[in-house]
Every structure is written in C-alpha cells, then in structure tokens.
C-alpha cells in the first residue's frame, strides 16, 4: 500500500476549525427554529455572528483550495466513489457559501437587523420585500437540511475510509500522520494493513 499524500497544513487547519462551527450552526439553527424557551434569544445571538464567521472562513477556504489543491484519492478508490466524493465536496462548498448568504439576504428582506455583537450590525443586502423574505426563508431551511445530509454523507465516508478501507484518505485530513484511525492499531487484525506497522 502506498502512502497517501496529505492535505496542506492550512487546509487541515481550516477544515478542523470550520467543522465544529458548521455542526454547531446546524444544531443551533434547528434548535432555534423550534424553541420558544429562554434559549431562543441566546441561540439567535449565536447563529448570526457564527454564520458570518463561517462565510468569511469559507471564502478563505476557497482561496486556499486554489493555492493548496487537495491530494488525489488513492488508486484503489472506484470511479463511482470518486464521483461521489467530488460531488459531495462541490455540494459542501456550495452549501457552506450559500447558507450564510441566504441567511443574510433573508434577514435583509425582512429588515431584521443583522447584529454581530453589541452595536456592530451588517447592512442589508436585499430589498425590503415580504415575498422575497418568504422565498429565502424557505430556501434557508431546505439548504440547511441538504447541508446536514451532505455533512452526514461526508462524515460517514470519512469513517468508512478510516475504519474499513484504511487507505490513508482519513489520515490525509487528520492532524497526525497515519493511514487509519487510532483504534485500528489496537485491533491485531488491522496491523498488517497499517502503513506504520513494524
């Protein structure tokens, strides 16, 4: 088995910085859309600045992807899986970028202030229009579910590479240079497949 090339340090840093932010955002979003409790206000005040932070990081990440292109997948990955990987990454990037923009435009169309912190507010980016708001508000929900589904597929595929294929794809994004997840080494049956096995 060949050693799988790894993502650049900047790419890994951006990935692991944004992963918890996006997962938190999905849970904050679905929670606040249901809540009428005291938490609602807190969740809203987290959701807006966190969304804008993700937007800024997403732009940085797209720029980074051109500077540091991702490593190729190992040859053992089938064409269909290659296509699935490519499509899911295009979807992830598109959704990461669209979610905050649609959110910002949606709040703008309703003339809700986009409060970041204290007196810091973002200007509206769309006309004040109830019909436009309704359309963007529904789009925000649909995209959120799509993002959650795409995240699940991405997470599932990562675990599949890390636990079953152990082809170095998981390790290419991990902080530690390893071909598979740590507990794979504790399983004697897997040692022969680990690139670091003696």
């Amino acid at each position, binding site marked *: 088995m060949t050693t799988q090339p790894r993502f650049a340090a900047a790419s890994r840093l951006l990935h692991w910085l944004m992963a918890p932010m996006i997962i938190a955002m*999905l*849970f904050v979003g*679905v*929670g*606040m*859309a*249901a*809540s*009428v*409790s*005291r*938490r*609602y*206000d807190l969740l*809203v005040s987290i959701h807006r600045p966190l969304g804008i932070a993700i937007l800024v990081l997403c732009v940085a990440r797209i720029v980074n992807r051109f500077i540091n292109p991702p490593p190729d997948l190992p*040859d*053992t*990955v*089938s*064409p*269909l*899986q290659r296509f699935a990987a490519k499509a899911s990454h295009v979807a992830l990037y598109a959704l990461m970028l669209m979610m905050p923009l649609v959110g910002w435009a949606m709040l703008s169309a*309703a*003339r*809700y*202030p986009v409060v970041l912190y*204290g*007196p810091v*507010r973002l*200007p509206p980016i769309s006309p*004040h*229009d*109830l*019909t436009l*708001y*309704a359309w963007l*508000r*529904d789009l925000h929900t649909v995209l959120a579910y799509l993002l*959650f589904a795409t995240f*699940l597929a991405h*997470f*599932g595929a990562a*675990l*599949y590479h890390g*636990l*079953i*294929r152990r082809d170095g794809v998981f390790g290419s994004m991990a902080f530690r240079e390893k071909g598979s997840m740590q507990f794979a080494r504790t*399983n004697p*049956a*897997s040692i022969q*497949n680990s690139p670091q096995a003696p």
Partner: protein
Amino acid sequence: MDMKPLWFNAAAATKPGLPIRLGAIGAVMLSVTGAFAYTGGWLSPERLTQDRMMAAFREAYGIHVGFRRNHAKGVCVTGWFESSGQAAAISKAAVFRPGRVPVVGRFALAGGMPFQPDAPSTVRSMALRFLPPGGEEWRTGMNNIPVFPVNSARGFYDQLLAFSPEPATGKPDPAKIKAFLAVHPEAARALALIKKREVTSGFANSTFNSLNAFRFVDAAGGPTSVRWSVVPVQPIKADAAEQPEQGDENYLFDDLIAQITQHPRQWRLIVTIGWSGDLTNDATQPWPEGRQQVDAGTVTIDRASSEDGGHCTAINYDPLVLPAGIQPSDDPLLSARSAVYARSFKLRAEEQHEKPPSAVTPMEAQAGGKS
C-alpha cells in the same frame, strides 16, 4: 486496462471485525441524526415548540391566511420621536440622545381575528419602530393593559387553548377556563387587574405599556431595570364618552385615522426605573407605585394608513430588536414573544399572495376613516 472495482472493495469485506466496524459507523450516523431530530423537537411531542404555538393560535382564532397570528387587525402609522435627552443618562442607545428620530408604528387589537368588530374591552396595542441613523433600531410592542395575563410561554399556550371557542357553542368552555386559572393563579390575579383598568374612548388617548421588563445600559456599562409606557398627551376620555357609529365595525380605527388626519397625536415615552427587588421576570406583576420615572421624549404620529401597502406590514415588531443600550431582562416571555412573532411572520410572508384585503382598506384610510 485498469480494472477497479466499481463500488465495494471485495478484499476489505473479508476482513475480520468488519461487521462491528460497519455497525459502529451506522450507530454514529444514527446518533448524530437522532440528536439533530431531538434538537428540532421532533422526538418530544410534549415540548412547546413554535409549531405547537402556531397550532394553538389556529385552535383559538381559526385560520386567517396572510395575517399576523395575533393582533391581526391593525393599521399602520408613521411619525417621529423627539428625544428629551433625559433617558441618555441611563441608556447609551442613540435613540435617547437629544434629537428627532423617525418612527413607523402599528395600532392593533389583540386576538388573531383580522375582521373582529372593534369593541371597547378588546386589548389595544401600539407597536413602534424607532429608526435612528446608524441602523441601531429599536422595536417595541405595547398594550393598554397594566400587566400581562401570563408569565411564561406555557402559560400563554394554556391560556390560548383554555379560551378557545368550543365548536358547538362558539364560546369558551367555562370549565376549561376554571381549570386554566387553577393551574395558573398568576393569571387569575393578572386578569383581575386587567379587568379593573380604565378603558378610554379610543387608541389616541390610551396608555400603552411594555409589560415586560428590560435592562437599560449606560455608557459605563451600568445596568438599570426598566419598564416603559407611552402616555397620551391628548386628554383622556372614558369609553362611554363616545358612542360608536351605528354599524361601524372599525370605529376605533376610523376614529384614530380621523383624529390623526385632523392633527398629529402625541404620547410621552415614560421610562419607569425598577428598584432592586422589583421582579423583572414576571410580567403578571405590577411594580409598586412611586417608582422614579424618566420622561424620555415625545412620540408624534402624523400619518395613518391601511396595513395593505402600509409601512408596518413587512415588519415584525419583535421585542428583541434592540439597540446597544437596551437589553432583554430575565423575563422568559421576551424570548417566547420573539420566537412566536418570528414564526407568525414567516407564515404570513409565505401566505402573502393569498391574503384578502384587511378590515381597514386603503380606501377607508384615505377617506379619513369614514367619519
């Protein structure tokens, strides 16, 4: 030719421990999905959510496509706020610096029925949107009652259902109301105070109260617990002083429009300062008399229009749209109101293209309110 397996690596499938690994991945996927569903309230039918609150509004008031779920009957107004500068000592909000700020407001009657006939005892509301330069706006919705009937989201939900008309009689079931008051003694006390209030002849001489407490924050970060009211400059006339025109179901709104058309109407914005120990998390309880009050300035309303095409229609008077210098208190109703208003706003925005004309039409408003 390179013969890659199309999907599944057969060699991997023969590895020992594979079912466990696959099972582990499945369990992780299920857990994450389950946590997401739990957060969204889908796994807890007992939890009070925005959707369940909307269902209670439907139960209580019926379906009225395109209208606000509560305070459905209303008119839009515009004018300005002339700040006295006196509240600037306790709040750093730009709106309290001396000077003039445009306002967009809405007068309405409580309840989700957009075509209910105006009646003296129906709770009246005034919502205001202050628009100081710099975008730090302030929205507030106030009512002409001294206290709110309930002090929690659950209390509000229970009240909606308890006072819903029975399909058979078209009237609320007294047994349900009795049961509600037994579970919510705070509502029984508050409703007694509400019943005792002085009802004036119209919107223009009504006092509207914030009911919820808020926190003013001064330039040094010092907090002050406050409630506020808009108190009419117009002389107060008791309700019996003016009889509604025969058959005019919009007489309160028509009078208001006629009065504003005649000359601008004014209210003083009075901020009441709570003492330490005054409850800020219970809107059913009035603060004791004799609290210090600050006259923050004067609200002048010089234009009124129908909601249809009006400046207040595409606005959610969310009580948590606050400038730096005004913060929410620990009152749980504030979050509940904000959440429920947002859901109501979303629904009526989606239904906007199907909405029938409002009770007070543009033609009626332009005619100076019929009278």
